């Protein structure tokens, strides 16, 4: 199996699906010759020409709307939204239109499109280029939400997304584009709604998507040194969410920490933690711990930015306390 970067994995997924299906096209800002600022789509325009790799003006609501209309009438657009923070600009087209059209038409119309965007702080890009906004789209019925955590997931989930008949939002981690992983040479797709158990353990379940999967894995290594055996789960998609894999794990370990790079308040850790607390209630030895990003706009200054996001050390620390029974809130 060759080792490739997440960026290459995304590029391959797009190229393979575009070769297979003529109705797939890519649309966004500077996706053609420039290959996006992250160089993720470099080279595609040479193979598929500007007919199918379409550079747009800086009109996010506009090209998102175009993608919805194209998808409703027989195309399968992949929209490239340069920064996840620009989601706020396309929310109407995404949430009022794309997400609802299948339902509002009683199942007669559908909107097979993929919105590729990204998340993640600590690139010193400040408050408007660093947000992790997956919780917002996960709240809207009619949207699927995929969160790849490595090149392997990125390719497999994106291919599934492109073939899905519904709008799918896929968040790549900006800091991970150059990270390598082994990716099969033969064709593969990863199913939505199927979590991966990346490491088995008995003492505590660590749950994290995207960037936070690595944080959980590193925390598990740190915990190993203390003789604590952590299980690490990556749900891979938030919608649909693989509740049963998570619950099965927590029923075995009796403890869980849910880690996320989105803001903690009203974010995804709340959903996952509350499902565990409800549905594995009698199995829990301690409260489920939530670790989201701080509830502050992302600051520019590195000394501040770095403390807003959960770290492996932070997770390990909480896990130790959890296992030691020290995380009980005052009576």
């Amino acid at each position, binding site marked *: 199996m060759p080792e490739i970067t997440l960026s290459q994995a995304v590029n391959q997924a797009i190229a393979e699906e575009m070769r297979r299906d003529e109705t797939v096209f890519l649309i966004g800002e500077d996706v053609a010759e420039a290959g996006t600022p992250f160089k993720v789509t470099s080279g595609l325009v040479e193979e598929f020409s500007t007919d199918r790799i379409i550079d747009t003006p800086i009109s996010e609501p506009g090209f998102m709307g175009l993608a919805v209309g194209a998808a*409703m009438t027989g195309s399968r657009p992949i929209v490239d939204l340069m920064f996840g923070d620009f989601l706020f600009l396309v929310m109407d087209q995404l949430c009022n239109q794309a997400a609802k059209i299948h339902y509002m*038409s009683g199942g007669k119309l559908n909107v097979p499109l993929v919105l590729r965007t990204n998340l993640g702080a600590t690139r010193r890009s400040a408050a408007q280029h660093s947000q992790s906004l997956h919780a917002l789209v996960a709240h809207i019925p009619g949207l699927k939400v995929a969160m790849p955590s490595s090149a392997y997931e990125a390719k497999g989930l994106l291919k599934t997304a492109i073939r899905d*008949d519904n709008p799918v939002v896929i968040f790549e981690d900006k800091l991970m584009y150059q990270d390598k992983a082994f990716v099969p040479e033969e064709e593969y797709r990863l199913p939505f709604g199927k979590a991966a158990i990346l490491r088995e353990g008995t003492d505590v379940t660590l749950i994290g998507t995207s960037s936070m999967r690595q944080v959980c894995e590193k925390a598990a290594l740190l915990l190993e040194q203390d003789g604590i055996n952590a299980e690490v789960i990556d749900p891979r998609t938030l919608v649909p969410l693989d509740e049963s894999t998570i619950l099965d794990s927590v029923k075995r370990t009796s403890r869980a920490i849910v880690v996320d790079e989105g803001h903690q308040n009203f974010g995804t850790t709340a959903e996952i933690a509350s499902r565990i607390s409800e549905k594995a209630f009698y199995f829990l030895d301690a409260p489920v711990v939530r670790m989201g990003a701080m509830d502050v706009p992302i600051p520019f200054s590195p000394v501040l930015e770095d403390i807003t996001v959960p770290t492996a050390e932070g997770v390990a620390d909480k896990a130790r306390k959890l296992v030691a029974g020290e995380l009980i809130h005052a009576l």
Partner: protein
Amino acid sequence: MYTQMAKIRVFEDNANQLYLDAKMPGLTHMYSGEEAVAVGICEALKVTDKITSTHRGHGHCMAKGADFRQMFCELLGKVNGYCRGKGGSMHIADQTNGNLGANAIVGGSMGIATGSALRAKLQKSDDVTVCFFGDGATAQGLMYEVMNMAALWKLPVIYACENNGYSEYTSTDEIAAGEILERARAFGIEAFSVDGQDVIAVNRLASELVEKARKGKGPFFIELMTYRYHGHHVGDINRTYYRSKEEETEWKKNRDPIEILGTFLKTEGIANDDELRELYLKVRSEASEAVDYAINADYPDISEVDMHVFQEG
């Protein structure tokens, strides 16, 4: 075109009555008075051509070929409606005739229409998409974003601005600076104005532009001067604070699109009074039959509530 316009008028009369009789859930926006716009344009389209519609969408839907029964069922939330009762008046869509749907977000369908045209171009299909919207919708920034792309990429889309003088309770000159047609022209889009009460004029212009657009000469922009007879929605009864009774009477009496066409047909000797009356009566009885059908039709089974959130497969 006379029949089509009559069907819209009669549909709206019935819808209004259903509302007054409290038989229709929610409220709805009447197209009466604007029939020549939808009919003049849609008669220039093939069944494979697409349209996007608005909150005031019954006229577009009907003109693009929909039938009374499924439309009334949709308005009443019945399972035999175009959207199985899930969309209602503001989301009525009829994909078999290329109606991509009404939209309850003002301006919300402008991206959809332009995207449909992009798809046509990419797939080398020769269909044209018409985007209907009101004068009020010209205040939505989305319009300028998509007109820019349509112009850059020469997309087969026609923007049809139904200027009925008002958006809700506000007259157009209070909310639109400069000139609407100039706004399209500034993006390099050819733009035309036409009397929206004259279905023949509308149809002539539309036919010409549709064929041009089909040959890759699009996009185009049309402003259609028209008037809505009813209030903004069925509940908007006291309107004198924003428009005068005289103005309403003037349009209804002297600029009614159905009468204008009727007079033309009679003058040209194409039809006489009796024929037109009969035609109208026929449409009426079709409509009443459909209303009865819809009233007696079933609501969706409650198990449908969580169907169609996602398309399976």
